[in-house]
């Protein structure tokens, strides 16, 4: 089983990102689970969401304390919370930042992607969740690009979906090129 923890701020779609990941994993033929940390969702407040991917039905329903991956949607969170808490040393961190390198309190690999720029270019708004999922797919291979796109098309109305599919693709390609 792989466990993924998303960190974002209210309004950036961290909860939707976790949902999309679980949907994509399901479309890949796996079992999956996604749930928010159940905050009172206020715009700008730190939000945590969780996803699990497995070959068997996932019974565990506690929050994720030792993730295989963390996805950080907002670089300003790095100064506020220990996003890498519990991250497995064999795991990976994916951070949305314009910087090419980020120091995190972890032995795990740290990767960056400028998802805000991608979101602004493609969507015209700084909502980075779909770009982050695209980059996550390229970085980890835990879900296929096709299934992420399918999940995005399922989740959003048509016009919005197509723009978000583009965000997924651009982020996927950028991440792939960096690896």
């Amino acid at each position: 089983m792989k466990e993924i923890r998303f960190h974002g701020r209210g309004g950036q779609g961290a909860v939707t990102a976790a949902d999309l990941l679980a949907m994509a994993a399901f479309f890949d033929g796996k079992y999956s689970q996604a749930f928010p940390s159940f905050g009172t969702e206020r715009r700008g407040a730190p939000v945590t969401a969780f996803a699990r991917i497995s070959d068997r039905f996932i019974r565990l329903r506690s929050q994720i304390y030792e993730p295989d991956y963390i996805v950080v949607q907002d670089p300003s969170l790095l100064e506020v919370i220990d996003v890498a808490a519990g991250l497995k040393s064999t795991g990976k961190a994916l951070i949305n930042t314009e910087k090419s390198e980020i120091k995190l309190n972890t032995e795990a690999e740290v990767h960056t992607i400028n998802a805000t720029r991608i979101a602004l270019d493609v969507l015209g708004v700084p909502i980075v969740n779909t770009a982050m999922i695209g980059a996550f797919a390229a970085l980890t291979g835990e879900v296929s690009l096709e299934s992420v796109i399918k999940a995005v098309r399922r989740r959003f109305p048509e016009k919005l979906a197509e723009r978000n599919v583009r965000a997924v693709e651009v982020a996927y390609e950028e991440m792939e090129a960096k690896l």
Partner: protein
Amino acid sequence: MPHRDVMHGSRAVAEAVKLCDVKVIAAYPITPQTHIVEDIAEMLANGEFDAEYIMVESEHSAMSACIGASATGARTFTATASQGLALMHEVLWIASGMRLPIVMVNANRALSAPINIWNDQSDSIAERDSGWVQLYVETCQEALDSVIQAYRIAEHQDVLLPVMVCMDGFVLTHTVEPVEVPDKEQVRRYLPELRLPHALDPEHPVTMGSLGDPNYYMECRKQQEIAMEHALRVAEEADEEFRRVFGRGYGILEEYNMQDAEVVLVTMGSVAGTIKETIDMLGSDVGLLRLRMFRPFPKEAVRRALRNAKVVNVIEKDVSMGFGEGALMTELKSVLYGSDIRILGTVAGLGGRDITTEHVRQAIERAERALRGERVEEVAWAGLKEEAL
């Protein structure tokens, strides 16, 4: 054809309502139930099924509207949580006293104060004596399936009682996971049209819910109690038939790893999944008994399941203040009265406090220490911050 899909628990419930050909829905939105009634409204707006959707100004009115609609013989549905359920309290008794087969989903949430939107089961446990059948589910799939089963139980001529399907708020309502949506024709065959024998009919006028003076009131209550006894058998049959038709079932209680288990954890709802995972992770020989049905209480089945148990630890998301333990623990003591089984309790997850595998491990350890004859706390609060008291 049934189809596998991936969706929120709330959506799974809405799918069940659609499959059951519900005719009247009356609801007032409240976190974490909101998505259930929003999804149903969306389905109706899209023409996916046809029903009367009554917007009301409170949960008290929602249940009252369901009572009126159900009395005409229409299949009705509502959903609520926490304060909403508490506001319904008075009318819950009227629904059951008038023997109306209303089905309601309660998205279990803590009660105020302090204001808390997160999950525990204090809200529905507090309504245990209101004459409603209560089911508690572990997964989103079971939530969907239990709504379908609930109508079959509620509408059975030997029962005619309202049924509350309790699903942990957020933990299930807001979780995305795989769910199989049954075939509509199969559901129609499983769930025949509602025939309410005492439905309102202008040709044969009757008065319902009128004065029951001391000459009659006790008989009404006794009839409800008899109907509850029937509900136990009917629920078992409804689940067996469900398994035959849809290929999966749950029983009125679930036994996990119970073979020769001397230590047994007992619980209700979604935390059973975390407990199963912990038992397997530890390679433990501890068993789990998950009660799916809390009202009527499956006394005989529980005694049978625990016949080899020596120590029981009840993990529950409620506490009866002033009695120092959860209601399920108290009821187990009552059901097991006269036996030598040691009964411990663990109050956990109040107000959405995360229940971790470590909490479960501690509950197992305490029970195992009791088994070895060591002195242990009778009731422990999992994850409590002693320093904050």
